[in-house]
């Protein structure tokens, strides 16, 4: 087994091929910052063992629906089968937004990489935002 850091040298046995537990993700995730100019909320849903995200972002005249895109999923360790993070990409033509999410103690930390492709000379930028799932338990 090849590895480039010792934490990746692990004994893989009965877990091989077992699907990831996706239960941490599906639901409506609300931005912790009510004054955001970025993403207001995410709706993550499961379909056929895959996860989809729908982004709703703040616009000058209300929410902008980005539609849905697939998420690539990540566990917390090479041996874990519990989903803990994801990567998703939106290509808008004039710009591309790459989302890198990870869940820490129920908080979704969402890193966003915005790259402009329209020659507008806007600088590409990075921002992180925080989201909590509405669960209605308390």
């Amino acid at each position, binding site marked *: *087994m*090849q*590895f*480039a*850091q*010792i*934490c*990746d*040298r*692990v004994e*893989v046995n009965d*877990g091989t*091929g077992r699907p*990831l537990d996706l239960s941490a993700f599906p639901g409506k995730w609300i931005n912790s910052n009510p004054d955001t*100019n*970025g*993403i207001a909320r995410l709706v993550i849903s499961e379909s056929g063992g895959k996860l989809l995200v729908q982004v709703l*972002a*703040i*616009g*000058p005249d209300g929410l*902008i629906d*980005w539609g849905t895109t697939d998420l*690539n*999923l*990540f*566990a*917390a*360790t*090479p*041996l*874990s*089968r519990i989903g*803990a*993070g994801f*990567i998703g990409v*939106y290509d*808008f*033509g*004039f*710009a591309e*937004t*790459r989302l*890198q999410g*990870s869940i820490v103690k129920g908080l979704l930390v969402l*890193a966003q*990489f*915005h*790259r*402009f492709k*329209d020659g*507008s*000379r*806007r*600088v*590409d*930028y*990075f*921002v*992180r935002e925080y989201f909590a799932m509405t669960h209605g338990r308390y």
Partner: protein
Amino acid sequence: MDQNLQFKQSSHLHPALSDPTTRRWSADKLIGRWLNTNRETQGLAEFVIEQDGDRFNVSAVGVGTDGPIDWPRTRAKPLANLEEEAGQRAPALAATFDLGFMKAEIQIRVNKGVLVIVLFITFLDDSGRSNYVNREFFYRPD
């Protein structure tokens, strides 16, 4: 800001994005050699960030069984870091290390003097290992 610009969220129209000074990277807070704050790490022991004009390169050293493992020097893309809490003009960096059997897509930023790296690791070798996300923290030794 030109109101004809296309956008998908209001922050796409943030005036700072069209301000040429935003593009003048002040990377002093990023450049150099960084060591993992966790001396018992089983992951990356060291991380190096270099700047050549507008270009950035990164390299890393993984902890191995028989000594350090060099990760290949890789181009990193700078992005303006608009986080309010940052209060600094240091860019964030995005890079992907391709090691053949795995790739590591990483985000790099400085927060109050700590280099924070988040790695999204994907195994490409059918070894059965789960792709995973990990976070490491680094300090400057000097």
